């Protein structure tokens, strides 16, 4: 243990890090006195410092929150009433274990539905590993499929490039002459730490920045020279029209296309209208997207002729009815313009990275705790849409992430693989964050048992039979790797778990004892973390732990596919053809009309052209806010006082409804209704409203949500590749 620094007021300074599900990884100098965290400082080491956000500075209010769950509790009232009684850990864990055994013995392991999210994304305690491995070892379980943030981007990357490691590091934008931010709002989404700093630097160097987004976000206002508002769920049409202009004006890089891609001719035929009789001209795209033909033409020429240009495709446009087409189209355009594998360019997979070690710079990381073999996955065949190289579970035994409530409600009668009796929730808040909240309220009453591991009484925890209190990030040790410049960060424990809270691994150990699987306890927390680092580039574990950071030294920003472009003979793309697949034979062979082998535009149901607009004329999008990370931090006073949680609505749409700024309004469709104050603004296009996601679902006695939760309104269908479609929905707004 290195020297302990003491500062003013004799406070000890401990370095640690934060990586909540914000997209960032930042460092913190935590001041501790007499075992209490007194205050924080952002990274004050050498540049580029990993400075955190408003939420990070409020972490004391999370750790010392009076409403933190302190003890295990069991339900005593009606499910969902929030009436709980404190119990001991032994009663809580005995109950959970006996219920798992009972359900397994009575119905089989497929009756156990395990749900996890990105509530924490660090490498050991994050995502679903800790409980997934436990359940796999015990019996097996029904898991979910689809990565909620970005399934469309992952799918499109696998199809086009044969890998999900498609992003340059964020500092490479300093090499761009033009940056197009397409549905990207890093001021709020972070994604990742310092990306805003690099965008500022790029702008100050003279790089032109264009932002395409239904909203005039803080990111657009600060970085962009030009804002192009676009109707949600129509982005692919604009991209196709851009391709049209490039083809017609001979601006595409035919040398690059010939050398590195395959299937461009088929894409060209579709774009020119040879395939279906509809040329995808800017005039064709204009009424669909709301973007004028002139603007589309100008942007295509700029993107095609500026070298290098980075088309940074956000993942929000991929969370739409045909989101995979958006990502396929951005990657196709990046290839047509020859920007793949070049400094300042971008394979158009930016958002696939930075908080994870596997989507950009190829970090070496030792073995993580495995999810293990889940016998339930073998009970059913693999789905047709499963891609050869995309090694994620795709068995029909799995429930789609968006369909968990539907599956619990309907079970086998609804075509699902099993009837689900036990619901285990970890690192997630499905009732709040999954679409179609009303189904959750109905579904959860069908369960025989529900257990949730949580820090706060969330909308999901309210429905549990047992809630197990987990500790916060600085009450346990973990590691993460990622970043706009690649680094490993030690998320170091600063204080002991508070109250009776335990780390997820500790809870899993105690469950393993009761489930009779001592092999689960093969490694301690420290052993898992050392193993991660032993297999990494970090030379000294203890030094890394003390400093909390190890920076990978690169002589230049990392560029994905650099070798594939510079030395294609020795570095073919990891696709069947060895090339960038604008046309995918694998998709063609599946013969799924809505998953064509080339990028195509499909008019989305509940999009702006749906006849349903006569009843629900406004498009709903559900964006992030700076005062939360999804649902996290919602109760922290320092963050709540920063801004109100309001629906963004354009002045003209508000005026037509006699709505003034801060008026309470109801937002509704056939799926439900919420009541929320209005933010009447010029900063969103007419016809579109934004209800910030993460607000806590709080239904009143009539079932109307008063918390402002947009998932009362969103659709639990999924795109053809399995993407969630939060950003494709129609609603109406009225004065409340």
């Amino acid at each position, binding site marked *: 243990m290195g020297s302990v620094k003491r*500062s*003013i007021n004799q406070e000890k300074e401990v370095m640690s890090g934060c990586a909540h599900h914000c997209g960032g990884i930042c460092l913190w100098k935590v001041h501790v006195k007499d075992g209490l965290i*007194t*205050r*924080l*400082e*952002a990274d*004050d080491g050498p540049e580029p410092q990993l*400075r*955190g*956000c*408003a*939420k*990070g*500075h*409020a972490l*004391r209010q999370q750790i010392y929150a009076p409403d933190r769950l302190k003890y295990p509790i069991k339900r005593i009232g009606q499910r969902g009433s929030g009436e709980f009684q404190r119990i001991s850990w032994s009663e809580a864990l005995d109950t959970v274990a006996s219920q798992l055994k009972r359900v397994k013995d009575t119905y089989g392991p497929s009756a156990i539905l395990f749900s996890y999210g990105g509530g924490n994304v660090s490498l050991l305690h994050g995502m679903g590993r800790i409980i997934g491995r436990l359940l796999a070892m015990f019996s097996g379980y029904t898991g979910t499929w689809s990565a909620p943030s970005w399934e469309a981007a992952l799918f499109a990357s696998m199809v086009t490039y044969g890998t999900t490691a498609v992003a340059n590091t964020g500092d490479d934008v300093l090499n761009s002459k033009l940056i197009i931010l397409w549905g990207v709002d890093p*001021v*709020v989404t972070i994604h990742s*730490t*310092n990306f*805003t*700093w690099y965008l*500022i630097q790029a702008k100050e160097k003279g790089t032109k920045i264009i932002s395409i987004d239904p909203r*005039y976000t*803080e*990111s657009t*206002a*600060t970085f962009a020279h030009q*804002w192009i*508002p676009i109707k949600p769920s129509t982005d692919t049409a604009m991209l196709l029209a851009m391709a049209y202009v490039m083809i017609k004006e001979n601006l595409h890089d035919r040398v690059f296309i010939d050398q590195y891609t395959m299937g461009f001719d088929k894409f060209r035929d579709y774009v020119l209208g040879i395939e279906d009789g509809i040329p995808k001209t800017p005039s064709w795209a204009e009424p669909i997207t709301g973007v004028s033909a002139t603007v589309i033409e100008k942007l295509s020429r700029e993107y095609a002729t500026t070298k290098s240009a980075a088309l940074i495709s956000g993942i929000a446009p991929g969370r739409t009815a045909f989101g995979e087409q958006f990502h396929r189209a951005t990657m196709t355009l990046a290839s047509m313009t020859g920007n793949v594998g070049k400094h300042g360019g971008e394979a158009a997979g930016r958002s696939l990275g930075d908080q994870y070690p596997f989507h950009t710079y190829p970090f070496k990381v030792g073995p993580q705790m495995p999810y293990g073999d889940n016998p339930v996955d073998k009970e059913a065949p693999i789905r047709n849409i499963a891609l050869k190289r995309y090694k994620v579970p795709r068995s029909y035994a799995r429930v789609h992430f968006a369909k968990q409530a539907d599956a619990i409600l309907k079970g086998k009668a609804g075509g699902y693989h099993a009837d689900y009796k036990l619901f285990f929730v970890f690192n997630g808040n499905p009732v709040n964050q999954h679409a179609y909240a009303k189904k959750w309220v109905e579904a959860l009453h069908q369960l025989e048992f529900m257990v949730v591991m949580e820090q706060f009484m969330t909308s999901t925890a309210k429905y549990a039979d047992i809630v197990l209190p987990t500790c916060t990030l600085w009450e346990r040790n973990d590691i993460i790797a990622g970043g706009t410049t690649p680094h490993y960060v030690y998320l170091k424990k600063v204080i002991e778990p508070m109250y009776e809270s335990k780390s997820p691994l500790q809870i899993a150990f105690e469950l393993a004892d009761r489930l009779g699987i001592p092999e689960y306890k093969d490694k301690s927390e420290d052993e898992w973390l050392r193993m991660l680092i032993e297999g990494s580039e970090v030379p000294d574990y203890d030094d890394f732990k003390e400093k909390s950071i190890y920076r990978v030294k690169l002589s230049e920003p990392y560029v994905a596919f650099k070798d594939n472009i510079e030395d294609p003979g020795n570095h073919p793309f990891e696709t069947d053809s060895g090339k960038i697949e604008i046309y995918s034979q694998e998709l063609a062979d599946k013969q799924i009309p809505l998953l064509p082998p080339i990028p195509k535009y499909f008019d989305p149901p509940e999009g702006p052209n749906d006849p349903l607009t006569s009843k629900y004329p406004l498009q709903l999008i559900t964006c992030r806010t*700076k005062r939360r990370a999804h649902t996290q931090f919602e109760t922290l*006073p*320092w*963050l*709540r*006082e*920063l*801004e109100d949680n309001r629906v963004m609505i*354009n*002045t*003209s749409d508000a005026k037509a409804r006699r709505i003034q700024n801060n008026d309470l309004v109801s937002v509704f469709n056939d799926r439900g209704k919420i009541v929320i104050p209005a933010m009447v*603004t*010029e*900063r*969103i*296009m*007419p016809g579109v409203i934004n209800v910030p996601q993460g607000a806590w679902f709080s239904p009143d006695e009539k079932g109307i949500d008063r918390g402002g939760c947009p998932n009362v309104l969103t659709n639990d269908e999924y795109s053809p590749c399995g993407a969630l479609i939060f950003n494709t929905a129609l609603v109406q707004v009225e004065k409340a």
Partner: protein
Amino acid sequence: MHSEMKIKLQLGLYFNQTRCTGCYACIVACKDWHNIPAGPASWLRVHSIEKGIYPNPCLGFFVVLCYQCIDPPCITVCPENAIFKREDDGIVVVDRKRCLGRDVCGGKCSDICPYNVPQYDAEDNPKMQKCDFCLERWSEGKKPICVCSCPTRALDAGPLIELQVKYGDGKKGEGFNYSERCKPSIIIHPKLYLAT
């Protein structure tokens, strides 16, 4: 008269308005560092300035904290002489023990400050509190917490004459009026709005 007071090396703030994203990290950093509860007292605030009409709106931000004026009017009006300017560095400090409290005094300092710097929390007869330019941090060679927390490095602080050499002498910014009476110790790189 404080305008005649000789300050050894007046400190100042630099604000690059073009870099400010309105992320509010500085606001919370200040609250955490100085342990100020959520409530009416905020030593640092960020104003947002919106102009224009769709599809050409403009948005910018201005950070508001005590600008350690060269000639602070708050000092002049305080009936108890509870506010003073430090000779070494020009930091304007309030002695809360001397302060009569807003209900007794009527809040003369907050009435006269053009930037609404004096703050009060939610108690009876609250004593004035305000940004103290993190004077405790300077003694450790550290800049104010807001400067050190800004993700886009929009802020800097140091001796005013050094800031002037490094950044110029800009006094204009959207959402800010430079008061000739007070002479706030701030240098600004303004954000130019596309449309008004």
